[in-house]
């Protein structure tokens, strides 16, 4: 196995991009990443693209080929593969690129993620996102995606000391970070009252507990570490790449409030890197809902079960805290174009480790990314080091 490094990253602005098409999004992200890496198209050996549901969002399948074509790589016949694991599609695409380079099969590989979600109505997108869970035995009963996470929140609050105000603090903190990120969908600060006065979506979760519907794309370039200096003076090393599965349905989990796949992927990643949670300087976690960030902090081992609410309220996860969580604004404020989110997390960590996160820069040499598919049936964890 070869060591792998990230040599370039790019990300579009996230948001409701009415004037921008699916193709425009990934072409922009890819161009930014290649420019950042100092790599020209003819050097690219392979492409992996994370995308959850272009078939339903924009009625387009065969995304790998489409992206190779519009990125100008089709006439060079560059292999291009679409990767799907619901909201973890981006993290999984990055992992496939890392595996391709580590194995020695490929040298210069692009990992991208893209989702164009606003071409359909809200009811239709609620239905599509529910397909990340079990369509036949959760969706059929009327389960929505927020509804499933609401059931996690209710179970959690029944068993552990988490107040409604502490849960709201997760969104307040992520909006504070989003306000400092020029690509974020929401760059406005909010208060606990903003969250508590927003409409109920699925009790106890309110509108401001939920990540939004977003258009966006992100791309990164990976190469063998021993070739990284050909392209850049500031390569970022991939210290660990881990993935874990769990039951597709929430009701079949060992414990409703613990994402066992997060626990497993986190432990595997720490073992690979030879590190513990104390070595991590910042972490991008999958906060599709506020309760998901609470669970992630605990499941990855940053504190004991039941402590993440207090940790958040005490400011430990803020930019100037002991362990900054979601410096990008997270899914909540930066936005959540499902297939792109996992790549955006890598983009944010690389920006932080290179000291380029102007306005939200933290002191960091090692960062972690945590990307979840569905309610935890797939979890991908990466550790990167400067």
């Amino acid at each position, binding site marked *: 196995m070869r060591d792998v490094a990230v040599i370039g990253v790019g990300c579009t602005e996230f948001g409701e991009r009415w004037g921008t098409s699916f193709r425009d999004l990934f072409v922009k992200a890819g161009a930014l990443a290649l420019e950042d890496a100092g790599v020209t198209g003819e050097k690219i050996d392979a492409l992996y693209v994370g995308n959850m549901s272009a078939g339903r969002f924009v009625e387009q399948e065969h995304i790998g080929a489409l992206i190779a074509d519009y990125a100008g790589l089709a006439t060079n016949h560059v292999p291009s593969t679409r990767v799907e694991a619901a909201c973890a599609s981006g993290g999984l695409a990055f992992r496939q690129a890392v595996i391709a380079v580590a194995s020695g099969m490929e040298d210069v590989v692009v990992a991208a993620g893209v989702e164009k979600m606003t071409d359909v109505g809200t009811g239709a997108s609620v239905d599509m996102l529910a397909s990340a869970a079990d369509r*036949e035995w959760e969706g*059929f009963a009327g389960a929505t995606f*927020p509804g499933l996470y609401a*059931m996690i929140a209710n*179970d959690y609050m*029944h068993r552990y000391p988490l107040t409604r105000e502490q849960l709201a603090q997760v969104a307040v903190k992520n909006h504070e970070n989003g306000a400092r990120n020029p690509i974020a969908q929401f760059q406005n600060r909010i208060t606990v009252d903003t969250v508590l006065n927003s*409409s*109920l979506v699925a*009790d106890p979760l309110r509108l401001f507990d939920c990540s939004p519907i977003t258009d966006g794309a992100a791309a990164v370039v990976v190469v063998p570490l021993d070739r990284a200096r050909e392209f850049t003076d500031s390569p970022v090393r991939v210290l660990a790449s881990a993935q874990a599965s769990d039951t597709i349905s*929430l009701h079949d989990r060992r414990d409703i409030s613990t994402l066992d796949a997060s626990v497993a992927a986190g432990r595997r990643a720490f073992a690979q890197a030879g590190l513990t949670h104390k070595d991590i300087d910042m972490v991008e976690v999958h906060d599709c809902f506020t309760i998901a960030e609470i669970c992630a902090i605990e499941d990855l081992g940053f504190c004991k079960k039941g402590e993440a609410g207090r940790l958040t309220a005490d400011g430990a996860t803020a930019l100037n805290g002991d362990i900054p969580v979601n410096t990008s604004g997270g899914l909540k404020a930066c936005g959540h174009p499902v297939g792109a989110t996992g790549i955006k997390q890598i983009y944010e960590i690389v920006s932080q480790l290179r000291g380029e996160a102007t306005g939200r820069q933290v002191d960091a040499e090692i960062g972690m990314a945590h990307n979840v598919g569905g309610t935890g049936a797939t979890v991908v964890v990466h550790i990167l080091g400067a």
Partner: protein
Amino acid sequence: MSVSRFWRKIPQRYNLVGTQCTTCGRHFFPPRSLCPDCRRSGKIVDHQFTGEGTIVTYTVIRSASDQFEHTTPYVLAVVELDEGPRLTTQVACSPEEAKIGMRVKSVFRRIAADGESGTIHYGTKFVPAE
């Protein structure tokens, strides 16, 4: 959901028929044709559940997909059947009535409709047992 896809699981959806692995004794609902513990050595047979269980966790859905929008607000829960397995189901009770730990039993009800004049799907819901 397509007619054939729904029709295929009518006995399970209407009557709460799941499966059991007679090798290890574990019950499955939703039904499984492979026991995750015994895998290929597990022998799977149909099993009729009694329909009695307890709410493990729940929520009140206020905003739903188009298929369920006319039903909101509704109580959605994870129910643990007395035989062991858990399932996701609606509970026909008021949002205030639903509680973690509440005893419930299954009933046959209309679940959803595909549009104004489309197929009506029936299946199992739960109601408070007391």
